[in-house]
């Protein structure tokens, strides 16, 4: 990269408003005459019902409406959320209802919507709605759900299998037949929630006079929200506008269209008044998507040096009661296993089952944490069985830097070849070992043990698909004010998107980033777009801004060249003007150029130039690009209590060229914290009736400030070859390797006890139990 025009660690443009209480989140929107919604939700994991008595609720002063299934079918074009993708082979019961007709399939499924003057009254009334439930057997576990004779999640279904598929390559049978060593074991990865501190929420305002529905929603996918409304209300796109206000975090929890949003829109449509629904935390526990619920049976074939010859197994993936986002998670989990390692033969069967629990879709990591946990456990198992150093086993199995670009013998989710086009896994690995003082650890560990302290170290490597297309939109426009505005379909939810995009635009236009306004999603100004998930904003929207701003720059140069009768290369751009390099007194300000390109009379512009001092770009990445990282963590375990303290956490991460390293560090730190939750704290318990046993923050343990250490980050910047900026994603890079590294470190600390850990999260009580079991076995 050439020298940057502006300080890469540019201070965030978002901060001033957010630090002074002037952010505008969805619940901050108050419209005159606004009503509020509360939902009546199923208390059963599985039940049928034949009637809903809303009379007492409707009689309560301040209640305006109570909607049930009958209202949905009389108002909307479908009783289902429009599927995000159609998979013909899926059972008909797969897609979620907007409200169910006569059967509830998870605790928290909404059966009626109460609309009232305030949320307080709406909740009073919701408690008065009577539903005559008949409980049915519920299915809480994905492995049991796959067994013949299991009760079914949906009463009319023949079984609980959504689909089965196999990911394989090479000759795994041969690899196992010839193997010197074969080790097999089972693993569990438990589900957790997204838990952005701001929950979901929507304000809908249907204006009957204009026949116009405006929706402010806290979402990661505004265009999907717009499209769902268009389809369900049978309106055209000019009648539906979705505006995304400040979003208080996403993490996957806002990456789908939910029944609550549709019902809020419907209430506004029917009542002709603004209507608001703000998710409370209990609703987030019950009805917002979760992820990581999988059980694995795996076997590895290895040679005498600890090199993997083959991996095979079965994944039971818990899809929840409904499919909200295809097969992204189970597919990713299956293809993520080899990751940065050379696995010559591979075969996993994936069994996707429904359970009577809320649906699972990607939550920060999207199947990659599960796949990574598996391979890291496999490597630790090889080291343990063969008496090898765990880092050395990883070194022997890593795909060497010299082999990049490397074509994996697998296909991406799109069916294209899976190619690691850039990056250097071994370099990151060795850098991380160096940075963490790995070589001296054995000595530190021995010294600690002599004092009766049990410390351990864990190393894990990961690769994450990022920057998946097809595109995002960016329009860079300079109006008559001379000011630069970037309109983009990119969704901002805390990543510093506006700052990063302003920096990219600023490079091209030669003005300070803080002079640029970035407008993230409003479907009125950015009608075509996809969404913020899968670490894709910077690759897709960033490059679109880069290209659009470049075109705007070219326009400025050409207009100036035309005006002054010189060649384009005699013009330079900077400080909000285009001027002659040799004679800066001859200049056109952006205001002048905007005026000329705005077709003001008397100002000459090149004949073949498009009108408007603006350009729109939709960069289409030719393929996904992969970020990679090595994590090293040092822990101390108190074996009497099972308490785990993280002493040190080192990350060497390669997310390609960094637009703003500070923002990337924020993503990595937050990602690691989320991973620490998955490794040690976050447990979403369900009982045998699929009743969640935890629905509050006192028991569901988000990592707090005392649970997360400082994360020591080293960046490696290998430019992606697949986009002009050379960038890769970073949003999920932090989370993926954490559980594998932490569990390995805990096990290492407890080496004298001979503990083997096959699950995440690993709670203190379980650690003590495992130590006891190991003592008994030993």
């Amino acid at each position, binding site marked *: 990269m050439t020298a940057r025009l502006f300080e890469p660690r540019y201070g965030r443009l978002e901060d001033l408003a957010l630090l002074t209480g002037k952010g505008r989140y969805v619940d901050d929107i108050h419209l005159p005459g606004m009503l509020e919604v509360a939902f009546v939700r199923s208390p059963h994991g599985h039940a049928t019902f034949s009637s809903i008595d809303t009379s007492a609720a409707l009689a309560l002063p301040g209640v305006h409406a109570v909607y049930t299934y009958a209202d949905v079918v009389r108002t909307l074009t479908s009783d289902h959320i429009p599927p995000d993708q159609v998979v013909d082979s899926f059972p008909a019961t797969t897609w979620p209802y907007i409200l169910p007709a006569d059967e509830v399939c998870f605790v928290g499924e909404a059966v009626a919507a109460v609309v009232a003057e305030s949320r*307080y009254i709406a909740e009073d009334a919701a*408690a008065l709605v009577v539903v005559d439930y008949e409980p049915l057997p519920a299915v809480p576990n994905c492995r049991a759900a796959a067994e013949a004779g299991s009760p079914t999640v949906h009463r009319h279904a023949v079984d609980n299998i959504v689909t089965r598929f196999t990911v394989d390559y090479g000759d795994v049978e041969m690899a196992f037949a010839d193997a010197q060593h074969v080790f097999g074991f089972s693993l569990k990865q438990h589900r957790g929630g997204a838990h952005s501190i701001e929950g979901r929420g929507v304000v809908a305002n249907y204006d009957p006079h204009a026949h116009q529905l405006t929706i402010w929603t806290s979402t990661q996918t505004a265009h999907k929200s717009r499209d769902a409304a268009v389809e369900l209300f049978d309106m055209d796109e000019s009648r539906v506008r979705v505006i995304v206000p400040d979003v208080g975090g996403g993490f996957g929890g806002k990456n789908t269209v939910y029944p609550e949003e549709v019902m809020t829109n419907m209430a506004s449509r029917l009542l002709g008044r603004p209507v608001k629904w703000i998710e409370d935390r209990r609703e987030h526990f019950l009805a917002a998507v979760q992820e990581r619920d999988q059980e694995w049976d795996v076997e590895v074939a290895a040679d005498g040096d600890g090199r993997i010859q083959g991996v095979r197994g079965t994944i039971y993936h818990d899809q929840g009661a409904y499919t909200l986002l295809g097969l992204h998670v189970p597919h990713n989990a299956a293809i993520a296993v080899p990751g940065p390692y050379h696995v010559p033969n591979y075969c996993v069967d994936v069994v996707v089952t429904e359970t009577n629990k809320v649906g699972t879709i990607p939550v920060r990591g999207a199947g990659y944490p599960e796949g990574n946990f598996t391979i890291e456990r496999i490597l630790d198992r090889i080291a343990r069985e063969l008496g090898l150093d765990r880092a050395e086993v990883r070194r022997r199995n890593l795909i060497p830097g010299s082999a990049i670009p490397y074509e994996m013998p697998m296909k991406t989710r799109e069916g294209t070849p899976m190619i690691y086009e850039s990056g250097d896994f071994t370099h990151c690995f060795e850098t991380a070992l160096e940075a963490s003082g790995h070589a001296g650890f054995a000595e530190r560990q021995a010294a600690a043990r002599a004092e009766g302290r049990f410390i351990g170290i864990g190393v894990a490597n990961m690769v994450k698909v990022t920057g998946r297309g097809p595109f995002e939109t960016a329009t860079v426009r300079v109006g008559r004010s001379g000011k630069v505005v970037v309109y983009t379909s990119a969704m901002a939810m805390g990543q510093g998107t506006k700052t990063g995009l302003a920096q990219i635009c600023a490079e091209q236009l030669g003005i300070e980033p803080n002079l640029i306004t970035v407008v993230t999603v409003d479907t009125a100004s950015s009608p075509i777009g996809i969404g913020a998930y899968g670490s894709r904003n910077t690759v897709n929207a960033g490059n679109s801004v880069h290209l659009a701003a470049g075109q705007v720059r070219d326009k400025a140069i050409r207009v100036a060249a035309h005006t002054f009768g010189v060649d384009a290369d005699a013009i330079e751009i900077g400080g909000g003007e285009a001027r002659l390099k040799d004679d800066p007194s001859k200049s056109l300000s952006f205001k002048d150029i905007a005026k000329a390109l705005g077709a003001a009379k008397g100002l000459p512009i090149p004949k073949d130039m498009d009108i408007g001092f603006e350009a729109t770009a939709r960069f289409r990445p030719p393929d996904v690009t992969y970020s990679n990282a090595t994590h090293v963590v040092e822990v101390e375990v108190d074996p009497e209590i099972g308490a785990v303290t993280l002493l040190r956490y080192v990350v060497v991460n390669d997310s390609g060229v960094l637009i703003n390293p500070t923002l990337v560090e924020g993503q990595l730190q937050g990602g690691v914290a989320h991973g620490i939750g998955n490794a040690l*704290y976050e447990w979403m*318990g369900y009982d045998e009736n699929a009743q969640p*046993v935890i629905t509050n923050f006192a028991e569901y343990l988000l*990592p707090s400030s*005392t649970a997360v250490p400082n994360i020591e980050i080293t960046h490696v910047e290998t430019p992606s070859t697949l986009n002009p900026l050379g960038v890769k994603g970073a949003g999920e890079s932090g989370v993926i390797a954490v559980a594998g590294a932490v569990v390995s470190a805990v096990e290492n600390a407890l080496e004298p006890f001979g503990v083997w850990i096959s699950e995440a999260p690993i*709670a203190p*009580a379980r650690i003590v139990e495992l130590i006891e079991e190991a003592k008994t076995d030993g």
Partner: protein
Amino acid sequence: MKPPPFDYHDPRSLDDALDLLAGKENAKLLAGGQSMMPMLNMRFVQPDDIIDLNRIPELSSITEDGGRVRIGAMTRQYMLERSPVIRDRCPIIIEALRYVGHIQTRNRGTIGGSLCHLDPSAELPTVAQGLDATVHVSSKRGARTLAMTEFPAFYMTPAIEPDEIVTAVEFEPWPDGHGYAFLEFARRHGDFAIVGVAVMVALASDGSVSRASVTLGGVGSGPLRCSAAEKIAIGSDGGDAAMREAAETCRDIDAMEDVHVSAAYRCQLAATLTRRALRMAYDRAANREAVA
């Protein structure tokens, strides 16, 4: 998650509060609100009347008189943290308060509220039990006292009548120079403990343990006084062997279990924490450097 409707009362004196309470069928008292408000927001409780005790100054005080320390029920946890009387006379309370919630909850939470909420692992009831405290209770019918041992009726329910209000807790501080330690294990700082233990020891002139108090929180429905551990500790030399032997008695406790942890794990924590707390308390009494 919004509170259900109720009638709100904020009496300015204890007598007014008792009058109000006597006349209400389904009333709840609101002290610091750090447990009651979440239960209201979640609608786990749906009282017809809320009687707010926050505007009754006479219930908020820390006094030492006649060799006994008396703490008004509405004394907030942060006041205890900063009280010279508490610091000088029973520092174990301050050590325990470090584990009680967070800055924001200690600014509102009261000792009376904590005692009456009676969460099985709550720190203040455990310490109160360890101090052999007396609880003062009033109603229109008159005032009475209960020993802390009699105060828990059953799970999260104190042995007081619906028309009664806890007004104060009172205890005799241990002699100057006693050793103490409060230890607990919670998953994150400030969380409800899984198990906590309050230990106090006093030493004879020869360094042997002359008096010991060991109380566990989180193992049963209320604080549990471990007399077996105390018996072994008393008269011992305070050495590691004696402390371990005393702590090991905790393994015989019939501990509760829940969706998070087993009874066996609770006993394991009880034995471990008790051993460490005994060690710490003894070392403090002996003016040695104490290590948790």
